[in-house]
């Protein structure tokens, strides 16, 4: 069987159309500060039966339904797309990060799985009629699927959101990433078992117990032996073969082998490639640039083919069931946000931070859609459920960033100097000695925060006497670590300047008192470097010092 010249033309044409629309809508969504993947799915809906198929059925059919061969070829290529997508998802899982992070990450991800899984499982098991179950014989498997579907977290969307909110490199960011990675891993293992259960009638049926044993055996084999093998091989390949070609090939060969194996035992191909991806990503020899090349290549060419193809299969308007959509949305939000927030809270975080984590972990994104697509292909769910799950994935992903942002604004953990600054904590002083100003600032802080003035003052002076805190550029930051829970900032302005022993001999005009928790040195370092980075210019400080009142000063600081 081979493709006729017409088939080949149509095949290539349809791929170009798909990529063109995917890029167009992807960029549009990016412009709207939303995940690109959403744009790709929208592109599929527009190109598919929902819009194009309804308005110009002929164009639609000639592009995507021309002949069986073309459809098979397109399916093959989207399969490749999803397999590669899971390869890179695996590569990004960093098990040592999970190990290193305190038990908080484990609690968050465990509750972030167990709770939504429980919510999904029991709702689907006891009220299957509201969740679109059609075949009652499949009740158990279906309930397991819904549980899994609700407990997935999409790492890429989470990562992107954290990056956009500028908390990617922060304690809370690490925590969310570690929890999301662990979550991904457990989620896919559960799902592989569910898929194996549905795939009982595949060509190589295994009993459930031997299937689970095979899956566990496969995971252990890959993570223990293949991982070591990869770690020893990569430096060898990088030395002996062309770079990065050799490594790229090596990675894809192993990935596809893993995929072939799991497909053979009746669990979908993506599971194998995901586990192999984890083993690859763990290698310290894998260069950052190799990772990025793979990512660029997969996410810009192959992944869009897969995401657009979702819309090509189904009419989203015909299969839109409001009740189902609402039920899935409510369950998804409730399960994940409550589960993760409780986990974070139990792990010792405050309410606000717990909610940030809860909503941060809520985005489902691409992974959920992969899961739904497979379940749909295996006939476990019907079109309506599929549409509901896709919408749920989109809504949870879009809503994640704005909601997190809302709580982040309240969070002091974000630790930016300007966010700690309040109107009343700015003093325009007439004091003209170093000790006088420090005393004035300490008195203000001690009174407003109910601290012992002597303790605060002594600590600040003790610190001041070791090395001067005059940073130059008319700026001084007297500081100390004392027994408090959250950092405290107060600012004094003295336009005439006070002698402060700065390196550049300029008198201090802007004096920032910084008090941070004694047991957390990093907070102090972070704030000190934040302040030093912002106030790095004499003219700028002169400008701030010339403010008429604290309101004006703060607004100037916030613009930095």
């Amino acid at each position, binding site marked *: 069987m081979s493709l006729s010249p017409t088939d080949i033309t149509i095949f290539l044409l349809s791929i170009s159309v798909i990529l063109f629309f995917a890029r167009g809508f*992807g960029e549009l*969504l*990016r412009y709207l500060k939303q*995940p*690109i*993947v959403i744009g790709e799915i929208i592109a599929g809906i527009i190109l598919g039966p929902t819009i194009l198929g309804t308005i110009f059925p002929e164009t639609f059919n000639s592009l995507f339904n021309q002949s069986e061969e073309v459809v098979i070829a397109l399916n093959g290529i989207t399969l490749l797309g999803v397999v590669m997508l899971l390869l*890179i998802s695996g590569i*990004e899982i*960093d*098990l*040592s*990060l999970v*190990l*290193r992070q305190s038990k908080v990450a484990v609690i968050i991800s465990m509750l972030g799985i167990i709770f939504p899984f429980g919510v999904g499982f029991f709702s689907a098991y006891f009220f299957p009629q509201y969740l679109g179950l059609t075949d009652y014989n499949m009740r158990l498997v279906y309930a397991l699927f819904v549980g899994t579907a609700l407990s997935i977290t999409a*790492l*890429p*969307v989470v*990562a*992107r959101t954290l*990056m956009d909110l500028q908390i*990617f*490199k922060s304690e809370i960011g*690490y925590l969310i*990433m*570690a929890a999301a*990675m662990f979550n991904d891993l457990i989620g896919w293992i559960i799902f592989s078992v569910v898929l194996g259960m549905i795939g009982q009638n595949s060509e190589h049926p295994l009993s459930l117990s031997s299937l689970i044993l095979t899956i566990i055996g496969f995971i252990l084999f890959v993570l*223990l032996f293949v991982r070591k093998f990869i770690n020893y091989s990569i430096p060898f390949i990088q030395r002996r073969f062309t770079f990065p070609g050799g490594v790229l090939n090596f990675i894809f060969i192993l990935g596809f082998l893993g995929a072939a194996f799991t497909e053979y035992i009746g669990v979908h191909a993506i599971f194998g490639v995901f586990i192999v991806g984890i083993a690859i990503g*763990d290698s*310290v020899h894998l260069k*950052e640039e190799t*990772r*990025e090349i793979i*990512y*660029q290549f997969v*996410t810009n060419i192959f992944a869009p083919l897969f995401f657009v193809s979702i819309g090509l299969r189904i009419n989203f308007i015909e299969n839109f069931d409001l009740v189902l959509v609402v039920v899935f949305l409510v369950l998804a939000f409730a399960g994940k946000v409550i589960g993760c927030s409780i986990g974070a809270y139990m792990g010792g975080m405050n309410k606000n931070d717990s909610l940030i984590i809860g909503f941060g972990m809520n985005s489902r*994104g*691409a992974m959920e859609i992969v899961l739904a697509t497979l379940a749909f292909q295996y006939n476990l769910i019907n079109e309506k459920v599929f549409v509901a799950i896709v919408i749920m994935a989109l809504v949870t992903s879009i809503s994640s960033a704005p909601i997190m942002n809302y709580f982040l604004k309240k969070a002091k953990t974000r630790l930016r100097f300007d966010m700690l600054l309040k109107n009343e904590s700015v003093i325009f002083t007439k004091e003209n000695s170093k000790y006088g100003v420090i005393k004035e600032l300490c008195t203000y802080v001690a009174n407003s925060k109910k601290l012992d003035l002597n303790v605060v003052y002594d600590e600040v002076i003790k610190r001041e006497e*070791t*090395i001067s805190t005059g940073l130059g550029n008319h700026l001084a930051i007297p500081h100390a670590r004392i027994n408090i829970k959250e950092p405290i900032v107060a600012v004094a302005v003295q336009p005439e300047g006070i002698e402060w022993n700065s390196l550049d001999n300029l008198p201090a005009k802007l004096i920032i008192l910084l008090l941070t928790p004694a*047991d*957390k*040195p*990093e907070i*102090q*370092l*972070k704030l*000190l*470097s934040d302040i*030093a*980075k912002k106030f790095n210019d004499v003219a700028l400080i002169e400008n701030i010092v010339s403010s008429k009142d604290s309101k004006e000063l703060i607004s100037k600081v916030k613009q930095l």
Partner: protein
Amino acid sequence: MIFNRIALAITFSPNGLPLLKSAVRLKKLFGCELYLIHVGEKSSDQEEKINDLVKQVGLSDTSYKLIWKKGEPSKSIINAVTENQIDLLIAGALEKETVIKYYLGSVARTLMRESPSSVLILTHPEPEPKEFKKFCVSVDFNELGETAVKKSYQFAKLEHAEEFVLIKEFEVPGLAITVYDSGSTSDTEKSKHEWQKEEEEKLKFFAKEMNLVGLNYSTVALFGKQGWEARNFVKNNGSDLFVVPSPPKKLKFFDKLFQHDIEFILSQLPCSLLIIRN
């Protein structure tokens, strides 16, 4: 005082004498007490051997204390360390061990992981012990990290070290994944650059807060897998003592399997290693 009571796990291997010499040198340097721990049956024959060693290095009978222990070596040594409130344990170790030994755990590796005291591992104890000249200290921004820097800085001053480098590693897990969705490579590069600057700045403030006076020091911030990057830096830099604060939790078998942080260093020691514990 940097350390009040140091101990050496004494053996009759070829390295026994050089190690003992190093321990005696450090005892004098720190001005502290020296304990010798020997695991084995106490017999006149063994006592003879130890006496012989001790005489060779010119230790008087009152200047050290000998402790005999029976049983499994690493456990016995750790017990002796706890019972006698040793704050620095000295031992010799190979730079790298066979895979099997690594997973099962040799005596030296077990001591590094589990001793309640600080541990100094000498990779090349020489017949005539030399001073440590090039110090590298891995920095953690926490209280133990501060202790590690303070102690090693005092140590370096006693040694009149030529070089004292503070290293801060930082890792941003999952960074590549942000190009996955709407990120561009230049964005990640930019962020990486900014983070690098921020870490360097923080490290400089850290050093300043520590008030390190008397010896020049330099600071380096390294982006990459923690433990691994520092290890390679130390190796390439040709340092002769690498100081690390101990990890907050006890390392288990699982941590050897999925190496992270200090395990990268333990599996292939770049040079002599000083692990600081509280």
